[in-house]
């Protein structure tokens, strides 16, 4: 594996995993063992941020938030990472036309392979607290997508939330679909915007995972119809926005 810190606390890690690269589809994830002993106990889920069957590689973009990611961010090139994947359902076939990819923070990771796949059909909007934390922007641009950014402090692009940027652009244009990945609050906002404009919308959710395969029922998110729960790992992580209520992890 190779790893580098591409923004403060943000790492880009490339792992040689030919079988995984061959079978993976955009929106899927891998469960990565992040520690040696019994802490952390569970694996950590990360979106496949690059799927490169030709080179037999997959890439991850992750942010250090706790003990697991701290451990992972200290791995050295050449070390082996223990991962299980591809897991989850990935993105469904999207309607023809332009697709706006809306990312908050490291949420961009899940959208990179989709941008790659959509090529010129993709337009991306990327939000972060400040410009130095806009990890993944260059990778997005490399896919050929048109990229716009929003920063809360106004240090780059639109000043404010990325969902505000989306709303502003929706005054001018209508995409065929919206696809979002990021914090629960942002996705909640995006869902409302999409509903208001009646644009089909998919969101990729996070949860604290156990098994990652649908067996333990640990990663529940509430269904919007009040009818129980869906599992992030096996019913998602990508859901139609109307289907679920994003909850903070």
């Amino acid at each position, binding site marked *: 594996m190779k790893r580098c810190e591409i923004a403060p606390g943000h790492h880009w890690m490339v792992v040689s995993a030919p079988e995984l690269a061959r079978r993976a589809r955009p929106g899927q994830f891998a469960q990565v063992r992040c520690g040696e002993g019994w802490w952390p*106990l569970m694996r950590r889920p990360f979106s496949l941020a690059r799927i490169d069957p030709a080179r037999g590689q997959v890439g991850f973009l992750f942010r250090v938030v706790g003990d697991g990611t701290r451990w992972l961010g200290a791995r050295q090139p050449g070390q082996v990472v223990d991962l299980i994947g591809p897991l989850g359902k990935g993105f469904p076939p999207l309607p023809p036309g332009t697709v706006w990819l809306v990312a908050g923070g490291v949420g961009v990771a899940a959208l990179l392979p989709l941008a790659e796949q959509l090529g010129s059909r993709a337009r991306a909007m990327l939000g972060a607290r400040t410009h130095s934390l806009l990890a993944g922007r260059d990778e997005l641009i490399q896919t050929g997508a048109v990229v716009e950014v929003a920063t809360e402090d106004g240090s780059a692009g639109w000043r404010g939330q990325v969902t505000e940027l989306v709303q502003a652009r929706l005054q001018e244009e209508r995409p065929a679909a919206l696809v979002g990945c990021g914090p629960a609050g942002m996705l909640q906002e995006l869902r409302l915007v999409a509903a208001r404009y009646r644009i089909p919308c998919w969101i990729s959710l996070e*949860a604290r995972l156990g098994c990652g395969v649908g*067996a*333990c*029922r*640990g*990663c529940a998110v509430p269904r919007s119809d009040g009818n129980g729960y869906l599992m992030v790992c096996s019913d998602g992580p990508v859901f139609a926005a109307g289907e679920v209520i994003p909850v903070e*992890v």
Partner: protein
Amino acid sequence: MRSEVDLSVKLGPLRLANPLLTASGCYGYGTEFGDLCPPGLFGAVVVKGTTPEPRSGNPPPRLAEVAGGLLNAIGLENPGLDGFLKLHLPRLRRYQVPVIVNIAGHRVEDYREMAARLDQVEGVDALEVNISCPNVRQGGMAFGVDPASTAAVVRAVRRVTTKPLLVKLTPNVADPVPIARAAVDEGADVLSMINTLVGMRIDVERRRPVLGNITGGLSGPAIRPVAVRMIWQVYRAVPAPIVGMGGVTSAEDALEFFLAGASAVALGTVLLRDPGAPVQVLDGIREYLVRHRFRSVGELVGLAHRNAGGGGT
């Protein structure tokens, strides 16, 4: 060398190809892990706790990590008995591995009804009566902390089925022996022990419990010493085979359980992290048997009691 050791075990009326079971709730309905951990690896598959009606389970978060363990508050999410029989059992049966259905309810009636129906179902090899689930408001663990209510549940179930009965005990008691005895007196063939310890965790930054259900069940290595102790106690006192569980992660752990008195062990939390664990555990058990010149797992069961002198609980 390999062919010399016998990994098959007798578990009361059941004969299993190897001493590893899945712990209920950690292996879903047997097919979720796919090739990462296929049902055929196990001596038997114990499915997720099943209730008469479908249950949607507890609000998230349902999982929280703690030192050496996991807290879960799934709340018995399951498609109900009908759902299980229709959706899951047919798929699981294809693997030709013994299937044990874990049943849970609010009332004695619930257990009886399910047992009566399952008694008729082909492809269900045994029932595990879960009187120890800490994550549901009524019933569940309440039955398992008292010998009388344990007896009531087991008696009701025993009357309506001739299938082998496992009764799953809770560790949240001062002494598991009277409860184990009550279960066996009423016709339990096998004791499964242990279910989870009730625990909780608080998020100090948000100043609120981490789990949606507030409390959850503690599993994993942290509870292993408690499991070993309870198996040890029950093995001395109650003449019934035991399926041991609670933090088994390696061959060494499994061996500890056999030596304490378990005839088989179930893997739970470890599967969530290492679906490859069963292969390693079986290899390790095999290697140990060969190295110490045992011919079967059965020879190990309860062996540590012989070397323990007089003392102890």
